[in-house]
């Protein structure tokens, strides 16, 4: 049977959006020495069946989108980070220790369905 293909405009398709985390907004600037903030980014957008192949999608997303096209009660595949990278943070604790740590999965580099 022919599967109806929902239309999605390009700007609504799953892609990476800029999100700057400013530690001052969180009140964390009082103990984080550096960085002052970082570009964490986020993923948002539609994952329509017609484009799951081209949107850096997993096989699972393809199957879910296929099922969603057949049965609209199945939720649409979601737009999520597919590649993340770390950041380093210099901060101070309550014992006056200066600490340098590296945290994985803090920055979204790529998104996919």
């Amino acid at each position: 049977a022919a599967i109806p293909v929902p239309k999605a405009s390009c700007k609504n398709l799953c892609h990476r959006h800029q999100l700057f985390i400013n530690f001052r907004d969180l009140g964390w600037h009082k103990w984080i020495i550096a960085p002052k903030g970082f570009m964490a980014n986020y993923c948002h957008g539609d994952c329509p069946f017609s484009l799951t192949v081209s949107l850096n999608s997993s096989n699972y997303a393809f199957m879910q989108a296929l099922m969603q096209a057949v049965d609209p009660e199945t939720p649409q595949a979601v737009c999520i980070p597919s590649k993340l990278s770390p950041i380093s943070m210099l901060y101070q604790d309550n014992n006056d220790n200066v600490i340098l740590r590296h945290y994985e999965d803090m920055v979204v580099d790529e998104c996919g369905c």
Partner: protein
Amino acid sequence: ALGQAVQFQEYVFLQFLDLDKAPSPQKFQPVPYILKKIFQDREAAATTGVSQDLCYVKELGVRGNVLRFLPDQGFFLYPKKPFQASSCLQKLLYFNLSAIKEREQLTLAQLGLDLGPSSYYNLGPELELALFLVQEPHVWGQFTPKPGKIFALQSVPWPQGALRFNLLDVAKDWNDNPQKNFGLFLEILVKEDRDSGVNFQPEDACTRLRRSLHASLLVVTLNSDQCHPSRKRR
């Protein structure tokens, strides 16, 4: 309710950072050069997309993913009767290792002593630095170093500028048995060199040295939860 939810989420994330609550330091401590350099190197690598092993500190040549710079919390000693007649400076060095969590493995503990930029010229060449491990408890303020209570670790003739001491074994012992952490005893001795022709004023020079002396402990640890030995880099 929203505020409580935000606080709860923040608490969970702070635990991920190994913090019980958001710190509230009164003032920022100076960031040592080595930490600044490692931070900048990692930032540059992240910007250019270079793959990094976050569990190896190449600048120090050790495995580890947490670097802590612990300030000295000890104090100067002014004995009524000097330990030795030539004693220029006596200080108890104390480092609080309680921030290190149980699952962290110590891979580096480096004591840094900065005598100041002009120590050599102020004190002349006849200077000797001695570092001891304090092995028995003592009453603060009434510390009198006696043989048997302290264990000689290292002696440095003609010290100047910045000195580094490997204290990994000592720090491991302190970390495993916090009740054994009585600190270190530092003594700087001066031999007056009358033949050098230098107009030497030991009291002034020692006062200046007390002002310029700066001690710290750089500790690197490896958290096995975050650094798996079998994990291969893609």
